């Protein structure tokens, strides 16, 4: 008997490398094409006839895919009320934020319909909508057999309704085409600041961009562990979407413009370069020391710990830090809209966690009843009494939510100042995540010493090529 040869030859290694290379190229391509999920599912709204009845599907079960969030947590105790109202059992699966979209993407690409309803952000519609993974909810809203007379879709802020609606043509404005999700909770990107420190030093929040930069620099004292303003800087699309794109838009800059049916990148215009250079300089001189790793938990942590004097991020991300006992600076924080643009613009980018229906769901009416209930006035009013931030309905904001804002100075004023111009400030396009992450890398490179103008020109050319494919 001979013993087998051991170890790998060079040829084996080359074969292995080849297989891995081939696999890593082919399989993602297949999955991007929707392997297993290629089938287009017809809209189910027209099948619902007769009169509206919450109890129509009593005894059935609806499965929800969620990620932990104050929105989700405030609704968790109310789920039994939905079951009492409809007789439908709710199975809510919770997936941590860092892995949520990996799981959701796999499920939708797999076309399984294992979850009927899922939480989704507006930008994800630009990726999940075109392959037919999401149900258009417009026919459901319009169908009186499926939707209660009391639902009042128009009560949801217009900027939110349009942010979750699109016709899937790159560059086409939001608000056209189907309604792919119903906004459930949202957040405006404004500035939270350490009011106790500001008051003690007699400082007022800066109302314009020039003064804001100067104030942030003046507040910075690295020896005392204090810096002016926290905002995100990690290699991620999420670095661009909060404070950065908000201020970028207020300064009158554009990401893309449509010319002759093509998207033309605007990140390398003179005005845009000037702003972005100033933004990076601000990060270097008055931002967190390790800015290029910063994500929102880092920014809000520094605000809560008293290291950051201001934080330009989502209002509902900074909001929890002011709750009694939640942070060192709890009770000391306040909010304002942030610096206006040169023309007084308060253009603000929003994030909305919305509820969407899986187009492959086998239980579409139950799914719609759940979405309708969760985004309805009654449930939302109850939810905002606990942990819910920024309800999507004007009636709920004006009634229940205002009463919860007493201990959050300036929150209401900031909200009311920006809500009229709060919407998705990006131009919708299907390569959003790739091109926007590339944008964050360009900012990091400038932070690392690259010339702003040439780096942004390179980035703009590369982004333009990608979005016009």
């Amino acid at each position: 008997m001979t013993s087998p040869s051991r170890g790998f030859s060079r040829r084996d290694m080359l074969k292995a490398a080849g297989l891995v290379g081939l696999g890593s190229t082919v399989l993602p391509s297949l999955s991007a094409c929707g392997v297993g999920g290629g089938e287009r599912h017809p809209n189910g709204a027209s099948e619902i006839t007769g009169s509206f009845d919450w109890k129509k599907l009593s005894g059935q079960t609806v499965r929800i895919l969620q990620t932990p969030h104050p929105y989700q947590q405030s609704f968790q105790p109310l789920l039994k009320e939905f079951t009492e109202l409809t007789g439908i059992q709710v199975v809510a699966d919770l997936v941590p934020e860092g892995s949520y979209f990996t799981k959701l993407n796999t499920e939708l690409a797999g076309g399984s319909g294992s979850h009927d309803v899922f939480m989704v952000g507006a930008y994800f519609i630009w990726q999940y909508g075109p392959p037919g993974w999401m149900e258009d909810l417009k026919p459901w809203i319009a169908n009186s057999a499926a939707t209660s007379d009391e639902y009042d879709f128009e009560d949801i802020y217009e900027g939110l309704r349009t942010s979750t609606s699109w016709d899937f043509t790159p560059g086409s404005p939001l608000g056209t085409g189907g309604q792919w999700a119903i906004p459930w909770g949202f957040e405006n990107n404004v500035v939270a600041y350490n009011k106790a420190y500001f008051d003690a030093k007699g400082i007022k929040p800066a109302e314009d961009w020039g003064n804001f930069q100067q104030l942030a620099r003046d507040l910075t004292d690295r020896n005392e562990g204090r810096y002016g303003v926290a905002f995100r800087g990690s290699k991620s699309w999420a670095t661009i979407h909060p404070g950065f794109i908000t201020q970028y838009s207020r300064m009158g800059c554009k990401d893309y413009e449509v010319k002759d049916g093509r998207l033309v990148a605007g990140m390398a215009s003179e005005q845009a370069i000037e702003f972005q250079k100033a933004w990076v300089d601000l990060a270097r001189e008055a931002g967190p020391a390790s800015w290029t790793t910063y994500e929102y938990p880092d920014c809000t942590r520094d605000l809560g710990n008293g290291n950051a004097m201001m934080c330009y991020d989502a209002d509902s991300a900074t909001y929890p830090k002011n709750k009694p006992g939640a942070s060192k600076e709890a009770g000391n924080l306040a909010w304002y809209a942030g610096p206006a643009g040169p023309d007084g613009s308060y253009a603000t980018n929003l994030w909305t966690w919305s509820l969407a229906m899986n187009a492959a769901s086998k239980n579409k009416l139950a799914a719609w009843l759940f979405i309708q209930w969760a985004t309805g006035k009654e449930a939302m009013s109850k939810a905002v009494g606990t942990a819910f931030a920024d309800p999507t309905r004007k009636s709920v904001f004006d009634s229940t939510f205002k009463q919860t804002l007493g201990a959050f100075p300036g929150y209401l004023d900031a909200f009311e100042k920006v809500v009229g111009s709060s919407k998705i400030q990006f131009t919708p396009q299907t390569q959003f995540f790739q091109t926007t992450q590339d944008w964050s890398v360009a900012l990091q490179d400038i932070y690392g010493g690259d010339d702003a103008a040439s780096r942004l020109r390179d980035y703009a050319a590369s982004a333009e090529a990608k979005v016009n494919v």
Partner: protein
Amino acid sequence: MATELKPGQKRLTPGAIFADIAIVAWFVFALFPILWMLLLALKNDAQQTSTYFAFSPTLENFGTVLSQRGTDLTSVDFKSAILMSILNCGGAVLVSLLIGIPAAYAAGRYRFKGSEDLMFNMLSFRFAPELMVIVPLFVIYTQIGLFDTVFGMIWVLQLVTMPLIVWILRSYFEDMPEDLEQAALLDGYTRRKAFTMVALPLVRPGIAAAALLSFIFAWNNYVFPLILSDTAASTVTVAITKFLGGGGQAYYNLTAAAALIGALPPLVLALTIQRYLVQGLSFGAVKG
């Protein structure tokens, strides 16, 4: 004249001092994440990100993780997640041992056309990124009803446990002198009997080591239970990350407490079979 050294005593040289400092530094470096996790698990919500070493320690986080509040936060009963992990990983290792030991023996003792390719193919399960194959696996699992089932998890974890067990045990069988089995065959044993009564008892420490290693790898697996299960068959790794929170409310302290609790079962298992493990890992280390 140099002092005579007693047995076990080392001469104090600059090199030896440097080596000792380097070892201590390495231990501090290697153990620091565990220490940090322990400290974090003992902090309350307000102190979790505002303190380093000076804080008011509390054991409350461990209670929260195992309590109804923990379940409310994560929608998962953490105790059930631990039991599910034991079931999934224990089952996966058992199946891999039942199939893998004969496979490793055959691979170690026989060479046939394509045997190396077969072994290489099995090893490729380990180096292929899981996310690369997860979409087709998800489709298959949902279509044949294995999604979110213990059986499905045991099956998919074979991708983790089987290659480890087969490859580790193959080297044990190869290192074992073939003469022992030849002697048994001369004494009238069948090949099967020679395998079960001669070869198998000799590689018992190796089996323990391979089983433990593959159990730990299966226990730590995250992607398969994340995608291929929801609540019915989900494991402790997925449950731990659910404590991270979201939307500005992060519970790093609860996550650290959950991670420490989650690390206990493999740790206990490793300590229980430590004797075999040491033998197993050093088996074949000194060869002519």
